[in-house]
């Protein structure tokens, strides 16, 4: 308990230092930053998370259960890595005077990435079955 208390106090001190720095920002900057802070939570909790759950529910109806593991892995990798690439996919910082910035064909890159994920998802099952044949497999077809 003493350890936890010490860690907690340390966290509060660090956070308070950040809050002090934050309060030193110019007022219009601070308002804008507060809006951005809130927007991130709203976009995640109000859009991304419900969409993820809706997609999961849909997937459990559509995807055959023997492929669920592979499809889950594939979709999580595809979706989360795509989120990390939003600024490049949209070429959002592009400038006409600097051709060395955002200078890849990101759409083609994304398609290649998506095809690789798809191939991985399709092939993972047969490959795993070859490597681990027999009744020791985790996903059994018999109803128990």
């Amino acid at each position, binding site marked *: 308990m003493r350890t936890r208390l010490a860690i907690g106090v340390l*966290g509060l001190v660090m956070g308070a*230092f950040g809050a002090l720095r934050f309060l030193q*920002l110019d007022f219009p900057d601070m308002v804008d930053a507060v809006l951005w802070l809130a927007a991130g939570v709203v*976009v995640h909790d109000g859009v991304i998370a419900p969409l993820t*759950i809706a997609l999961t529910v849909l997937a459990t109806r559509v995807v055959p*259960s023997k492929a669920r593991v592979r499809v889950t892995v594939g979709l999580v990798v595809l979706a989360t*890595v795509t989120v990390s690439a939003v600024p*490049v996919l949209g070429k959002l910082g592009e400038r006409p005077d*600097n051709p060395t910035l955002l200078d890849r064909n990101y759409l083609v890159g994304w398609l290649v990435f998506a095809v690789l994920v798809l191939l991985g998802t399709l092939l993972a099952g047969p490959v795993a079955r070859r490597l681990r044949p027999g009744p020791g497999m985790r*996903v059994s077809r018999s109803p128990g």
Partner: protein
Amino acid sequence: MKRPPLPTEASFTSPLRDERLTARIGTWLGVCFGLCFLTGLISHWYYLNDAPLLPPVRPVWGYRVTQGVHVLSGIASIPLLLVKLWSVYPKLFGEVPFGKLRPLLLNLAEKASIAVLVAASIFQLATGLANSAQWYPWSFSFRSTHYAVAWIAIGALVVHIAVKLPIIRAAWVGPLPEPDLGRASGREFEPRVEPGGEGASDSQPELQPATSYGGPSRRTILRTAVLASGVAVIAAAGNTVPLLRKVSVFAVRSGEGPQGVPINRSAKAAGVLTSAVGPAFQLTLANRDREVTMSRADLEAMTQRIHQLPIACVEGWSASAQWTGVRFSELLDKVGAPGDAALRIRSLQTRGAFAVTELPASFARDPLTLLALKLNSEDLSLDHGFPCRLIAPNRPGVFQTKWVTRIEVVT
């Protein structure tokens, strides 16, 4: 029309969610946040002019590595944070214990600390990611805001660790338990209905045999989150790791550019007038009232040195290149600058916060520091800082002043 009821914590029925899974993903995320925070502090230190202790001049690739790690650990955090938030999303709808004061206050305090942590974490990753692509869709100053919120995020994280420490400890004892199928009663992961078999029965979920669950194990979810994090890093790292240039499909820069090196800020964006860099260009060296002016031809007439030095920018990209030019300390000797004097470097650029920067004596007198005239054996292109630019070891790119026009001793 009847309004559907608000969801409660029990509305979320995925058998995968479990605090031990959350804690393990959280541990990975915590490592990434810790790395990101420490390398961010290092970068902040490199940007300070008045630090009591100056950054070292060696290794030459120091900032290249720390800032590369900073941006990549941030990118690694994105899949981990998304999966972690998925794993705790039902808690958002958890019951608030109205009626009793103490539990209510504790509950609200925890909710508030989590709100701060989530808001600050998303903010840091989103603004950092946008900055790496030089995209600024906001009006606040990136540097001071990203720095302030970094402390808020890490402070909230440390508080969170203190609160959850028993759960974190327990999560790392033994293997992750398999999904609790007693909870799998319907919406997100329905137990499989066997053709001709009895199938899922909502009234007796505990009778459902474990083998009929077709979904992934918790261990698979954890591994998937770590895998996605690794893929995101590899897809972006070509920015700074030359070996990965070809495979990093989401790198902000291909690594190509005039003379084989990308440009962070063009002459046009910096407001450098072409008239100012013509034949009339002169570099002024000043030590109090002693001044020497030199043309580019004068600089070319001095002993030329060739050094391999990286240029590494705060946005997380870097490139090593061969620079040719005059040793900086030999220029300073022309006006008898004291060996321990800091220098003020003025650029011809008319826009941007770094038109005038200070160069500490340790960097100015380092034998590797050059006033470069050539890049990869060609005359500097205008966007690389023609007629001459500073290149020093282990400094953020923004201090590698381009279009240098005046170097003066700070008195």
